[in-house]
């Protein structure tokens, strides 16, 4: 018997609203099954169960907000008898919670400081008038950003803030802001950039696509992901986490793919276990990931298990990306747009399709040598796209 609790999907997640149960009492579940959808500041996320068993009891009704760690359901292992038989006097939550295995999402803790200032924010309530509180909520303004010492916040402060920040800051935006400022503060970034001639890769891709139906076409974006993943096999030092002042390499390659949510910013869900995918599989998974991201149906593991980030802003007309690393990852690969560019080959100058690839690296984990090696390999691989199939 174990308790399924509201998982922590990030250090900045304190609670989430349980939107929908995907299982009912008595259902059999196995590890990895999506058993519920929760709404977090980052959007609706599907949460998975981590063990096999039978849903003994659902403890939290839909549309209820639950703090991280709140028991949501009791999962009975298949060979256990039901609680009803075992405990005719009823369910003792305290006892149950004690027995429970510590929540084992196989993710690195995002923070190495357990007493991050995130925690006290909740307890140290911001003083404000009821009207200011209401208006701030309506306008998506975080009251704490208006606080000046102990002075209570009134409507006037909210109104002036509203005027200065015209577009309301969404919860996700705030989450990103938090992660990014932490990254900037903590991670000593180094940047490298290289021009990659994409002419042959694109020609090859066009060739491939000509023989495919439109549904099976492969986008350059997928080719680039596949190329990065392939390159990481050669330069694995960039695939992992910086924790406890140590670089922890990850066997799995779970690139976080920056996906635009149209108007609502970027989110970087993980393309899980990309190292096992060929080009078609990469395209299919990428397609599925984009679709689910935009419909707000991400799984918890996809939100938390990135090992590196790939940001492709070519579609936005960006030439070159200087990315900010999502901690505790140690690298971010950026792609700009593919442009017709004069290109010297030997003595001949010709026009080629050229793309700027950048690498942002965490200087604590690696140095420019590793980064340079990575970009070099990436270039080489992209010159032989057929090997990526």
């Amino acid at each position: 018997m174990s308790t399924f609790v509201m998982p922590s999907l990030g250090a900045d997640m304190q609670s989430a609203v349980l939107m929908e149960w995907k299982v009912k009492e008595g259902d059999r579940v196995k590890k990895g099954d999506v058993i519920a959808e929760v709404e977090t500041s980052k959007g609706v996320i599907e949460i998975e169960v981590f063990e096999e068993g039978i849903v003994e009891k659902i403890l939290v009704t839909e549309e209820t907000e639950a703090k991280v760690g709140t028991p949501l359901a009791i999962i009975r292992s298949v060979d256990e008898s039901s609680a009803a038989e075992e405990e005719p006097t009823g369910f003792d939550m305290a006892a149950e919670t004690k027995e429970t295995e510590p929540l084992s999402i196989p993710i690195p803790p995002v923070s190495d400081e357990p007493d991050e200032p995130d925690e006290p924010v909740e307890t140290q309530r911001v003083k404000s008038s009821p009207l200011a509180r209401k208006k701030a909520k309506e306008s998506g303004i975080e009251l704490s950003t208006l606080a000046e010492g102990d002075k209570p916040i009134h409507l006037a402060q909210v109104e002036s803030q509203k005027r200065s920040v015209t577009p309301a800051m969404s919860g996700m935006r705030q989450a990103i802001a938090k992660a990014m400022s932490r990254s900037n503060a903590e991670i000593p970034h180094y940047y490298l950039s290289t021009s990659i001639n994409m002419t042959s890769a694109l020609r090859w891709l066009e060739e491939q696509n000509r023989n495919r139906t439109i549904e099976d076409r492969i986008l350059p974006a997928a080719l680039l992901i596949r190329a990065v993943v392939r390159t990481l096999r050669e330069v694995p030092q960039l695939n992992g986490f910086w924790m406890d002042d140590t670089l922890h390499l990850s066997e799995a390659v779970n690139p976080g793919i920056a996906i635009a949510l149209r108007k609502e910013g970027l989110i970087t869900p993980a393309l899980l276990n990309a190292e096992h995918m060929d080009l078609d599989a990469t395209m299919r998974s990428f397609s599925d990931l984009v679709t689910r991201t935009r419909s707000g149906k991400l799984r918890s593991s996809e939100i938390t298990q990135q090992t590196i980030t790939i940001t492709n802003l070519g579609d936005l007309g960006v030439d070159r990306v200087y990315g900010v690393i999502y901690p505790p990852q140690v690298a971010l690969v950026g792609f700009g747009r593919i442009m017709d560019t004069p290109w010297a080959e030997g003595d001949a100058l010709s026009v080629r399709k050229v793309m700027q690839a950048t690498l942002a690296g965490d200087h604590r984990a690696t140095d420019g040598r590793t980064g340079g090696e990575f970009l070099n390999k990436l270039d080489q691989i992209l010159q032989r796209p057929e090997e990526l199939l």
Partner: protein
Amino acid sequence: MSAEEIKEIIIREILEIAPEMTEGDIDPDAHIQRSLEIDSFDFLRILTALNKAIGVEVPEADYGKVDTLNHMVDYFVTHLEKR
């Protein structure tokens, strides 16, 4: 299928992908991807949907011919006539 009908279908599919837009936001002579912030993935989805609805597949080589709404309409009209 008339040009008008084709245009309607294209607009419908674009709005399906970019639900926060309205028909008024679509400038028929503007670059679809850039003006409507449609990335290559979404663009492919639009073309896939149009293939289903109209029955014409746009090869990658022709992407340059379907960059605006008006060009897209012309392209589909021409290719329907050819058949």
